[in-house]
């Protein structure tokens, strides 16, 4: 077990190190989400309800996540490193988990920029809303890392990834918006937890089949 977690940690560290060197994905995500929020200001008609703004926050988050997920497996594609990892790891699910954790770190970092910007431009965010963002982010990265690996094996992967990801993201948006605007966010947060549990386990178990023949 500790060896497995050690593998996961080494793999996640590798991704963080690569991003620290290249510094392309994270700044792009942060800039993208703020730009999107600004666009939304102009897209919302005057007098639109506050609830509508929360909805748009989630659109912004989902598409920012897509930006990051699109590049998630790029380092592995470059020089065939994915094959190397498949050969070297005793449990291939560690590859998925390391990648999902690293992607989560990037998404949370982008949210650290996005959420204050949102609160500044549109509406305040309370505890349940923030918890909803966190829970949904876990789900996004769990499912997204798997689906991104599928797309990486295909042609036209930049176009394919949103098609694969968005239907799966719809429940997350429901949970996230609900936790932001509902007077009783408990049900929505519980639902997000359920989604995370179901799809994290599914992704964890299925990853092996996606990357091996």
């Amino acid at each position, binding site marked *: 077990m500790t060896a497995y977690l050690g593998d996961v940690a080494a793999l996640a560290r590798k991704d963080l190190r690569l991003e620290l060197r290249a510094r392309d994905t994270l700044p792009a995500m942060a800039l993208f989400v703020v730009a999107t929020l600004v666009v939304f200001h102009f897209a919302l008609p005057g007098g639109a309800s506050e*609830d509508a703004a929360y909805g748009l926050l989630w659109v912004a988050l989902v598409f920012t996540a897509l930006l990051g997920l699109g590049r998630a497996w790029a380092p592995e594609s470059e020089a065939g490193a994915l094959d190397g990892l498949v050969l070297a790891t005793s449990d291939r699910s560690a590859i998925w988990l390391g990648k999902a954790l690293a992607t989560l770190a990037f998404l949370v970092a982008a949210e650290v920029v996005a959420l204050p910007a949102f609160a500044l431009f549109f509406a305040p965010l309370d505890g349940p809303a923030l918890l909803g963002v966190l829970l949904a982010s876990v789900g996004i990265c769990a*499912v997204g890392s*798997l689906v991104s690996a*599928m*797309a990486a*094996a*295909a*042609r*036209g*992967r930049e176009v*394919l990834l949103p*098609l*694969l990801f*968005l*239907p*799966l993201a*719809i*429940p997350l948006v*429901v*949970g996230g*918006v*609900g936790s932001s*605007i*509902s007077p009783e966010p408990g*049900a*929505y947060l519980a*639902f997000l937890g*359920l*989604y995370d549990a*179901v*799809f994290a386990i*599914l992704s964890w178990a*299925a990853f092996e*089949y*996606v990357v*091996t*023949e």
Partner: protein
Amino acid sequence: MSITRPSLSALAALAVALAAASVLLTFFIAPEDADQGLSQKIFYVHVPIALTAYACFGLGAWKALRLLLTRGERYDLESYTGIHQGTIFGALTLVTGSIWAKASWGVWWTWSSNQLVLFLVLFLFYCAYFMLRFSIEPGPQRERISAVYALFGVALIPVSFFAIRLASDFIHPTVFTREGPQMTGSMFAAFCASWAAITLLAYVMYRTELAGKRTDVNLRELREALAR
């Protein structure tokens, strides 16, 4: 094909017979609905089609699981055909649901019908299945990735269902009420006949499409063998 399996043409004939019976029952035996009148009859078609779509997706996922666990060659085509049939019936669900909405409430679409919204999400998901499948080179990787995606589909069905239920709280509740029909005996009979007919029809379509695809593959393999 083993001797005990009924032939496809026999099953098709049976499906036609059942369909005729269900039409009879629906229009002549089952009572007309007090609120909605004749348009309520769509229910006898719409709900079985929806149930059949779920069954097809389930079949596709089951075959996908078999593929992943046993690596049997046949399961890839079977899973794909199941998903394909499910998508067809899913599209039909949306169409019949839309017709029903128009007939009952005067709008072609409503977000308050949880079933309809669920099918929209699933339809998007399974359309992406085909995009995924045909973007990958044929081979074991394509089979496995398709299978994993099919399994994600059946996990998505209940999760989306809950999500949509939750969402209906803050999507404006509308004046459209969704009735769960309390069925009388004759209504139940009509419903069952219709359900049986549509399920059988789906099965016949599944077997036919599968046979067609297998023949396709065999033909191409023969061509390739001859070319050598």
